[in-house]
């Protein structure tokens, strides 16, 4: 009887330690970071709702209020920023995203999918060169010459910010 109690006590302790280790390692691998929506400082827009941002990224809204054409700079597959944008803005998987743009182009609603860039530096360069450009970068990688937009009234790092 005493042996059995000892066995089960040790079993429960071991499982508990295992679970804690698992949680710690899981938390380490899924590092959550806010993704900032950035535009050119020349762009007059200061904030967008998540719904407006969705329309822009889905190509349903192709012009800023000043009639400036929107140019989306989108990170290549496999990047954290792209995963966050697909999950929170498009609410699509990677294949669904590709199929979405095939159908938009065949409906003559767009001529190509958003421009894909390989690094945050390329987004920075694009935003500096194209007044209507918009991109998403990790909040920790925002550069001084990027204007960060408020989304639903929140900046990255604030409670209630939706892109992470």
């Amino acid at each position: 009887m005493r042996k059995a109690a000892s066995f089960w006590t040790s079993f429960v302790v071991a499982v508990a330690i295992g679970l804690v280790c698992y949680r710690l390692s899981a938390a380490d691998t899924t590092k959550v970071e806010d993704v900032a929506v950035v535009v050119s400082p020349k762009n007059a827009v200061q904030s967008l709702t998540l719904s407006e941002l969705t329309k822009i990224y889905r190509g349903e809204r192709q012009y800023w209020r000043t009639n400036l054409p929107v140019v989306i700079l989108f990170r290549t597959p496999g990047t954290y920023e792209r995963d966050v944008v697909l999950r929170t803005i498009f609410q699509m998987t990677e294949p669904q995203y590709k199929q979405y743009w095939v159908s938009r182009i065949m409906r003559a609603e767009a001529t190509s999918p958003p421009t894909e860039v390989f690094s945050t530096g390329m987004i920075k360069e694009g935003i500096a060169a194209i007044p209507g450009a918009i991109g998403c970068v990790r909040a920790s990688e925002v550069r001084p010459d990027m204007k960060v937009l408020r989304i639903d009234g929140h900046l990255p790092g604030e409670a209630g910010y939706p892109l992470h």
Partner: protein
Amino acid sequence: MTKPRCVLLWILLLLAAGGAASAQTAAEPGPSEVVNALLTRIDRLEQRVAELEASKTPGSTPAPQAPGTASEENQQSPATKIHEHDEDQSSASVAEHHFPSMHLRGFADVDFSSTDEHGTHSGFTLGQFVLHVASPLSNRVAYFGELSFTAQPTSYTADVERSIIRFDYNDYFKLSFGRYHTPINYWNTEFHHGLWLQTTISRPEMIRFGGRFQPVHFLGMLAEGHLPSGPLGMGYEIGLGNGRAGTISRAGDTGDANNNRAWVARVFARPTGLRGLQVGGAIYGDDITPTPALTGNPRFSELIESAHIVWTSETPELLSEFANVHHRDTLTGTVYNSQAYYVQLAYRLPWQQRKWKPYYRFEYMHIPPTEPLFSLPDFQVKDLVQSTAGIRWDISDFAAFKWEYRHTKRGPTDPIVNGAFVQTSFTF
């Protein structure tokens, strides 16, 4: 075994198991992992460069900048400005637009059919081979073309299905000229000739290619855009064009059949809060001068009213449309109304990577027996009651197999036809 030893043994066993598992997963990174690692490295290197640049330039900071506090040009040193100028030069290549810049895409399908209809043969058919050309001509001007090649008994027919040049002013006003799929119907402007995009093998009868119930094509001009409607997400399309040719299944590509232009107006709503829902309606007007002419050479004024409600989330998918075609004989003043509708239900199954999608469609079409235009042998449109049941299997992200059974009843004296159909459709 003492209690502490026992606990230690359990911990060691668990850690060993965890370590073995992680070592197994990390043993051989795949190509995507290598790419991800390289992308992460690029980001880190870029960040490091930015930090080094910031440390060289006193007063500048890489911290996130809140909106409304933009004073970046005043804060930058001359050295930074020179560097920025250099970057601006290189940045032109990041998202440089070349005009024109042609993008090509294709759709194709291969079909098999077998029915119990008298006089038909089972067998394979090559479906349409469709090429799309999209090319921006400037930031606000774009061209779109759609070519189809269709197998015929003795050769292939090539058709310019769509050819559109569009000028954008803003999201609220875009003006285009060319040959369109008439925006009178949801299906016609949603799936076009991309059979891979549509769930089923075939189009609904009311808007099938080569059909006569509704004008599938429209040659002329079209204004389109958003309507200021907030979360309702409303849009419009208003067109003016040649309308139906003398052969009513064709658009007046080489000129109108009479001096009366066709017009079309469509309004739809895609509510922001209910993504996937679209509700809309359209109205189309034209004067038809049939060729060959009917006895007495009558013309027919045509007015088509249509409505649709769709839910495209796939879990479930609902497509539903209704149209009433109103013809008035200009000689006698007699009015004829023909109706058609369909309801299509589908559901993307959650298992096996969501590759399977069963569907069902019911179609109905009623033509008054005295309808003179749709009763002529050259223009004939028959009553229809049809059920279609099938399943779609997405074998890849860009190719699908579809198996379909159809049960069709036409006029009162026509036999019921049952058929089995298989199709593979894809984009490339």
